[in-house]
């Protein structure tokens, strides 16, 4: 493992996808090791003893945990190619703010959409769409959140796109109808090889979600 880059990951994880995209953007060769989260490996527990979660990035034998921390690490170590964070401090702060917003809001509000039913689910859908609309507002007329170029916030958010189909099926709604600009942005990102080969297939994600719902005892 010395000198190399290893990624401990789980195929449907949006957080793992962020790291896959960043590594692909920088054209870094790495070893991908799929983890079984119901039967966590000694390696995972050793590399992330605090959270025992994926993704874990291991570089020169040293583990780095937390997906946005990993993306920033990749951006700093391989700084001469495909920069993800802008150089200007204020633009960097804006990017960090919105990536943090994605972290705080998207996973939880998305989870509530598939975990709940009836009135609770309607409220969850409203909140989820509300968050997406705020992001859409931030995107404005730019091609990417990074402006003209693909950047940090794009990496933070785009993995959720492959989960949209699953959310829509569970919640019986159309995200594109509510947030057309955001979907256009996501499709634009999917034209990039780094994104297309890092995101999971939406149908497979939906299949996985159905299994998860069964495990949670949700209809």
């Amino acid at each position: 493992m010395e000198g190399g880059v290893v990624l401990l990951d789980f195929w449907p994880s949006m957080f793992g996808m962020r790291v896959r995209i960043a590594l692909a953007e920088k054209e870094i060769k790495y070893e991908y090791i799929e983890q079984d989260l119901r039967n966590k490996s000694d390696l995972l527990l050793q590399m992330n003893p605090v959270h025992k979660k994926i993704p874990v990035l291991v570089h020169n034998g040293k583990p780095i945990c937390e997906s946005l921390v990993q993306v920033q690490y990749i951006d700093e170590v391989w700084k001469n190619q495909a920069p993800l964070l802008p150089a200007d401090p204020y633009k960097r702060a804006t990017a960090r703010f919105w990536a943090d917003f994605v972290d705080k809001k998207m996973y939880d509000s998305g989870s509530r959409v598939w975990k709940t039913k009836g009135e609770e689910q309607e409220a969850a859908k409203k909140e989820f769409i509300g968050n997406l609309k705020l992001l859409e507002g931030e995107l404005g007329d730019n091609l990417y959140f990074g402006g003209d170029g693909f950047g940090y916030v794009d990496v933070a958010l785009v993995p959720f796109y492959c989960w949209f189909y699953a959310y829509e099926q569970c919640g019986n709604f159309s995200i594109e109808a509510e947030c057309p600009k955001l979907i256009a942005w996501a499709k634009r990102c999917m034209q990039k090889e780094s994104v297309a080969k890092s995101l999971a297939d939406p149908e497979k994600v939906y299949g996985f979600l159905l299994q998860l719902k069964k495990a949670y005892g949700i209809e």
Partner: protein
Amino acid sequence: MKQMEYLFLFLEQNCVIANNMGEEVKLYKTWSTPFGLRVVWALKLKGIDYESIDEDLSNKSDLLLHYNPVYKKVPVLVHNGNPISESTVILEYIDDTWKQNPILSQDPVERARQRFWAKFNEEKLLPTIWAIFTTEGKDLEEAMAAWVENLKFVEEELKGKKLFGGEKMGLADLVFGWLANLIGIFEEVSGLKIVDERYPLLLTWMQVFSELPVIKETWPPHDKMITKYRALYEKYHPAK
């Protein structure tokens, strides 16, 4: 000529020449917020002159709502009219903008480590301490158990170190800083022992941190804090 020389001598001896002459820095916070205090420490560390505006959160100013429309919270740093929200984002902005006395090292592994622990504080310690403060019975037991688990990791992280940043204070120290003041206050108000002798490294860090020149004497007035948190505690634990 001589008059100008005297003027400069007077200025040099009597004014704190800040590291941001000609730049306007404003900090919106409250008198008690630990999140705002992190930013105060960072600005002090870098020798940045700023205007402090204390908000009344029950009656938020139009300016605050304009500068932070997403969360409508403090702290907000406004630099030459540009607003930055979220305390950890503000700390990194300050470090990116003013290079003296860095909060983060240049080494990417070390930077990742500091950022990891900053996130740990926000996502694990803060929700758990809130649960300890606001719950009773079985919920309190569960919160304490989670807290003990979390503190074990923090204690482990301090092994062989004076501060989380090593020899000098860093991002993680600024983010964990609330512990050095609020734990004492919570213990006094609740009667609970929250950080005990099982965590000698953390207890030492709390002392060392409080004595740092940048931190010393920046805590909000003790009596005012006790009054505030006692009232809050009673709200969640009404006398039967």
